[in-house]
């Protein structure tokens, strides 16, 4: 039986792949979105910032920021699932991955957002689930919450166009 790889090697490879995927998108930095990884599971983080406020009276998160957050979580989640298979399957060398040397990203076709509650002026989290992953099209469901995981403040489903397999 093959010996398992040392844990540091595995972690470093996966974290490098994730950093390359997320690090190259200026808008993700502008809004302040970050990603945490547990195995292959990603959680998107949206730290609270004054410039993400939409209603200064309440105050509440801007619906557009929420939309952007959900879309980013869905898109990165989908790209990550594909990248994970490539890196873990040995087809993609994580050591060679940089933001400008990534497989092409899926493209958003549409996104349908449900605003369930007011987004409070505090950190938000989101997780995406790829509900269908075809050769050409994919469907993703994404849910965002704040204090209470069981009480999401927004959710969305989206369709995405997958890049051609040979890049």
């Amino acid at each position, binding site marked *: 039986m093959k010996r398992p790889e040392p844990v540091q090697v595995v972690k470093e490879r996966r974290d490098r792949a994730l950093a390359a995927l997320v690090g190259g*998108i*200026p*808008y993700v930095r502008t809004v302040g979105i970050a990603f945490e990884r547990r195995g292959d599971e990603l959680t998107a983080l949206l730290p609270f910032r004054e410039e993400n*406020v939409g209603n200064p009276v309440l105050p509440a998160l801007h619906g557009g920021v929420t*939309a952007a957050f959900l879309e980013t979580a869905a898109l990165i989640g989908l790209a990550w699932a594909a990248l994970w298979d490539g890196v873990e399957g040995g087809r993609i060398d994580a050591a060679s991955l940089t933001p400008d040397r990534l497989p092409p990203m899926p493209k958003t076709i549409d996104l*349908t957002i449900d605003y369930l509650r007011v987004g409070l002026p505090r950190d938000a989290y989101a997780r995406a689930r790829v509900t269908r992953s075809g050769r050409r099209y994919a469907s993703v469901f994404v849910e965002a919450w704040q204090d209470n995981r069981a009480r999401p403040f927004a959710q969305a489903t989206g369709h995405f166009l997958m890049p051609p397999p040979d890049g």
Partner: protein
Amino acid sequence: MEEDDPRMRTARQFIDAIPHASALGMTVRAVGTGRVVVDMPWDERLIGDPARGVIHGGAVSALMDTTGGAAVISHDEAPLATATLGLRIDYMRAARPGEAIRAEAEVYHMTRHVAFVRATATDGGEGPVATATGTFTVERAPGGTRGSRGS
């Protein structure tokens, strides 16, 4: 549409009061009854695809949502405030690098509690960059006076 049009003032106040709209440089260009045109300048910070310099879909969504809300606030029935209930965005094509994006939203139906909105985003190129339909809450003043706040 005159600069001193009260609807223009209302729409401008609505957008200017939103920190995120200011952060993205959104400006109201025109207002009618339940109709608003908002521009968002191209900005490196909003890029989603660095290889092509294309604005991130999320920034387009933020523009659509803001413009939709401003259209609701600019309706003749003068809601005091509004919040997005649902928004569906279709992305037709990548926005052209270096070009401002213009969103135009209209309230095509309004009930006591809900406003139904359509919006289109263009960049001067052929056909829309994106279209959206949304439902927004309608929060009415008890006395029916015009308000200027909300999102």
